[in-house]
């Protein structure tokens, strides 16, 4: 999607390869310009990922979607340069993707992490002569699901989740035989089908809390999702509070807002006190 002015060219691309159709960007967008649309399917077909559509008339190219997308699928360019104006002007935080690999610990014949990464973002290469292992991670697209960390036999990878929260399957409501959520979940292993009762179970260790499963779930209330924290760079921004309100569950949000509130109250009190102090001095 493009907006061309004679003076500037704005471009927003949502890469369908990386976009999983979760709701994060649509929740964070201050203009509600992004809608997540479920895709139709024929009988017998597996559920397909929903598609994020952008309303050209509403989009500001502010770059919030770029900064918030856990899968790094959205990209805003202005005159060909990757710019997220909200980050530049510090009016929106960036999410912190913490994934580090200590390749020195890797045995030369192991590439388990490359195999387990559900999004194929890791490539392991061994120098043919020195046998030195290098791990290359496409960090910009990494949702920090921690699968590689857990599956690594040598404990060489360190990952911290971006989002934390809670995803629950209501067994009574979950329809047997349906595995739509499983089909769309981008993180293999975050959800699994029990062979015993044909219901879906969550492995919260790997879940990124992106919420695409809940979007495709045909039964309302079968999946319950709440997000409690999000790792982000510190910033003072009203826009962030609003996005947070929509993204996070209520208790989580109040926690973060309370933290901010405290800071603000302290500042306000200080401001109030300062002139008085001066007056006192004068007296």
């Amino acid at each position, binding site marked *: 999607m493009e907006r061309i002015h004679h003076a*500037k060219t704005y471009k927003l691309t949502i890469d369908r390869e990386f976009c999983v159709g979760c709701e994060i960007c649509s929740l964070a967008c201050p203009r509600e310009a992004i809608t997540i649309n479920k895709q139709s399917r024929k009988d017998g077909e597996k559920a397909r990922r929903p598609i994020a559509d952008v309303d050209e008339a509403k989009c*500001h190219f502010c770059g919030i979607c770029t900064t918030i997308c856990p899968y790094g699928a959205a990209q805003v360019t202005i005159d060909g340069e990757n710019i997220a104006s909200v980050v530049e002007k510090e*009016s929106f935080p960036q999410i912190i993707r913490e994934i580090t690999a200590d390749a020195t610990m890797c045995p030369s014949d192991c590439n388990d992490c490359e195999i387990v990464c559900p999004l194929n973002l890791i490539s392991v290469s061994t120098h043919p002569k020195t046998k030195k292992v290098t791990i290359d991670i496409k960090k910009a697209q990494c949702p920090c699901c921690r699968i590689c960390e857990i599956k690594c036999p040598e404990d060489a990878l360190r990952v911290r989740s971006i989002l934390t929260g809670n995803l629950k399957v209501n067994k009574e409501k979950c329809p047997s035989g349906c595995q739509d959520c499983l089909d769309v979940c981008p993180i293999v292993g975050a959800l699994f089908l029990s062979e015993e009762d044909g219901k879906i179970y969550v492995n919260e260790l790997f879940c990124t809390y992106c919420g695409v499963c809940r979007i495709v779930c045909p039964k309302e209330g079968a999946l319950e999702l709440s997000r409690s924290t999000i790792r982000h760079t510190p910033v003072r921004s009203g826009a962030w509070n609003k996005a947070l309100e929509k993204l996070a569950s209520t208790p989580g949000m109040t926690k973060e807002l309370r933290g901010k509130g405290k800071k603000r109250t302290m500042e306000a009190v200080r401001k109030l006190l300062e002139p008085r102090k001066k007056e006192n001095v004068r007296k």
Partner: protein
Amino acid sequence: MVEDIPRIGVFICHCGLNIAGVIDVKEVAEYAKTLPDVVHTKDNRYTCADPGQDEIRKAIKEHKLNRVVVAACSPRMHEPTFRKTCAEADLNPYFFEMANIREFSSWCHPSTPKEATDKAKEIVRMAIAKARLLQPLKEIEVPVTNKALVVGGGIAGINTALDLAEMGFKVFLLEKTESIGGHMAQLDKTFPTLDCSICIEGPKMVDVGRHPNIEILSYAELVSVSGYVGNFKVKIKKKPRYIIADNCTGCGECKEVCPIEFPNEWDMNMGVRKAISVPFEQAVPLIYTINLDHCIECYKCVDACGARQAINFDQEPNEVELEVGAIVLATGFDIYLPYDNPLYGYGKYDNVITALEFERLILAAGPTGGKVIRASDGKKPHSIAFIQCVGSRDLKKYEYCSGFCCMYTLKNAILIKEKYKDEVEVYILYMDMRTPFKGYEEFYRRARNLGITFIRGRASHVIETPETKNLVIRAEDTTLSQPVELPVEMVVLCTAAIPKADAGNVARILNISRGMDGFFMESHPKLKPIDTPVDGVFVAGACQGPKDIPYSVSQGSGAAARAATILSKKKWKIEPIVAEVNTELCRNTKVKCGICAKRCPYGSIEAPENQPAEVITAMCHGCGTCVAECPADAIIQNHFTDEQISAQIKTALKDNPEGKILGILCNWCCYAGADLAGTSRFEYPPLIRPIRVMCSGRVDRDFVLEAFKLGAGMVLIGACHLPYDCHYISGNARMKARMDALAPMLQKLGLSPQRFRVEYVSAAEGLKFAELMKEMGIQLKELGPETIKRENAMLKPILEKMLAKKQRKSK
């Protein structure tokens, strides 16, 4: 001094050949002589000219006239003139009556002079009948608030405001957008001198901002207007800027930290502005505005503003009430964006733009820094074609010529040619090159000499070559009579000036009318080009029709002078054609009635319990709705009394009533529309006998009954269009309610439905009136006098009984 015996003088005007060319004026004069109470008749070549008026003044003295009838043009034109003439001869001006034999007879029946003369005689006879019953009236004086409201801060409004302020009047300048300046502030250079637009307008804008007598109300809209000349009460809604105006220094630090950019409408969406910004650097007043539609509320601006504390996100729209004596409308125009024209590909092809967009491109302070570039690749075009008359002079879009497009096209062509010299080929496709006024033709010559190619002919369509985004124009070169295919790299559409999108709303608020083209209508196209039919409301600039800058400036100053004629007075005289209550007849003393108070469109009647109703004269606009509504006939409208109107009806239907249409037409719309039919020389059968009332709300059902009792072939009530056109807010709606009840009853009694018509004709619909007359003429013929007579015979006794009952009751 009311004399018992009327002594009527009748003056019949030739109006050169305008009347005398069709109507036998002498015959009409001879006929008038035979009528009762007429003591003097005279025909003049031009009654309205000095010698003509002189004759009236002399005759009043010589023949001791106490009533004057002038048979000439429309009273909408010269009634005030002759009233003044009478006053000069010490005759109460309300002893004057006008017979409209030009617009209603000679001009619309040129091929049937005999019938036209007969009609003229009857129109004169009707006027005499009314004149006989005229009463002397004294004008009402009201105080004047010597402040003015100017609506619209474009170049016209700026000049009006400055002139009025310089004369010493307090002026409120209302501007809808964030800054004054209007379209002129968007332009690059101005023709024919090529001086920079904002450089000459900017200082004027600053003058307005600084003037102690001017208060700018920007980012605000007109909500409602009540009151009357000299005493308007205006409600204005100020939109929230979310900035505390007094604290904002205009430093722009907030803009720097704002992360959001959105298309700048003021830049024709070619550039962007921040969610907190001013539309352009020279804005007056220089106050920033937060656009909450775009703001993401990150509050970075609040931090940047810091101690100045100018930002307040809790602002709400607030309403202000002003009291002013005069209002000048200078709301300007919109530029047509030809999205709906599929032929030229605007909105579809990147490199097809409008002239105003071109203006923003070539402007050094514009979004591209003065570079004229193509949207598709950001490169300079090597060939540009200007297509003229896009929307204008197009029967499918806007019939009128927008006037200034030829000149701005020439200007833009010269600018680009002088800028890029031989690197650019410039073409102009035109229909006619219209360059009147000072220095304009010379400017055209200059363009010709620069080597710009002029192709005469309308472009049929524009096609884009998808790979290069270049364009091909297909047109016919009418000078060579051959089709041309013109490949160019950029196309500029010179689009029409159109009425402001909210012009209808403004017209409604102020009760003024708009022409067929949608622009505000002036009182008279030649002699009152700045006035509107509403006293104390004036128009200036392009809101009245497309105008270039010098014309708008002069009209702005003209409007200031017109407004000053009111503002400079301590008292203003109002026509005394107001309603009065006969306290003896009023039922409100005995029963709970109050119908008049409820139905008055202006709420100017009070009917306290057990007391007779009372009209608050200064608030009464003189529509006469209450008079028609009063069940006890206890209210009269001065100068339009029941007796006067029934005398006109009786006289009109004296001879051959079956063959006539009795028309009761409202002054502002239907009567004006009929006038226009005459002025436009639309011919129609001479069947109508018109009676002018101020508002259709005055039309009593008794008038209709009376007309049919007397055997009228047809009755027409002509009103303003529903729901908003009525000049008295809702008089037409009241009339409709009344007639909707009456019509079925008459039909039940045996009246053919086509014999009683209620029609809505606007002042601009001369053609509609003429068509209506033709249609009714055909219907009248089809019915035939025999059917009509038969129906009338059946109706007469019943109608007589109904009317008699009423009369008894009122006694």
